[in-house]
């Protein structure tokens, strides 16, 4: 899957469109940034409600391709600016982390899982 396919697969709106449209092969769901820093995999998607620029700093450190902000939380402009500078896509949705993770899992799971 590519980053640009996330919007239709998850059902979310892209709010930061200046991203590198790389391939996505994993996801990580967490609202604790220290946990994301320690455990998320490079090239993946982060599913979270942490809508602030620190999330982008962590995403950039880990090498995440995209961040999905759940539960209708509104990413502030400085978060989007930071994401633009790092070419990380930001999506926004009214769905919960559970629902987004479920949809991502179905899209990304290995064929034999």
């Amino acid at each position: 899957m590519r980053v640009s396919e996330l919007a239709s697969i998850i059902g979310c709106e892209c709010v930061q469109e200046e991203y590198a449209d790389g391939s996505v092969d994993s996801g990580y769901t967490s609202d604790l940034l220290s946990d994301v820093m320690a455990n998320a995999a490079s090239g993946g998607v982060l599913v979270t409600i942490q809508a602030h620029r620190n999330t982008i700093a962590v995403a950039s450190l880990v090498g995440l391709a995209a961040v999905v902000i759940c539960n209708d939380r509104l990413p502030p402009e400085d978060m989007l600016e930071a994401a633009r500078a790092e070419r990380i896509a930001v999506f926004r949705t009214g769905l919960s982390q559970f629902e987004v993770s479920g949809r991502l899992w179905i899209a990304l799971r290995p064929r034999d899982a």
Partner: protein
Amino acid sequence: MRTLVDLHNHSCLSPCASLEMSPSALCRIARERGLGVLALTDHNSARNCPAFAEACGREGLAPLFGIEACSVEEVHVLCIFETLDEVLDFGAYLEERLPTLPYDPAKLGDQVVVDVDENVLELPQRYLGAALSLGFGELCRAAADRGALVIPAHVDRGMFSVSSQLGFLPPGPYDAVEAVRRPAAALTRGLAAVSGSDAHYPGQIAARPFVVDMPEELTAPRPRGGSERFGPALLGALRGKLGLREVRAAWEREA
């Protein structure tokens, strides 16, 4: 005597703060803007407190020595001590509880230990903005047991606060809470609510101090030089004022 107190300030040691925030620059600007009592509160570390002590001496400010510690739940707490020795001891205790994560200054910001003349002494290799392996309650108790003022930081902000991470303020050994606006009663538990600048850039220094009436001998201009002797009486007096809620935060100061 009416005194402006600001207990929440970062220096260039905090990865998210400007490199312009040397302890000497912080203290010079704080004095120019009329602060009387100043605390340095870098994230999870006290390594710039020695330079801060000297800089306060130079500027004639009354110093307190703090750390903004980050609990495992990612709640920030201001832990403010009377003396340099105490904060260095607590800082060492906290740094042992920092995770060993990959730290890239280009992504997360520089962490610079300097002396009072802005010479670089050290670039700590652990990421100081990380969460400690200490629960919020455990962290507050450890600070209180060592005699610190314990003040949950920006309790009404949407990140790194008791409201964003826990949803409420659990019972604990707090002297006050710090808030951005007049906080809801549920977030104060009847404690004094103080404002703080949380200064990361020079422009933010002295933006949101609180006002307290302090004994003149604790706030009179200091001679240049050492600062340690101002500590104990000052922290005790401040604790008393907070306990009686005899403070005016930025949102209720007179025009």
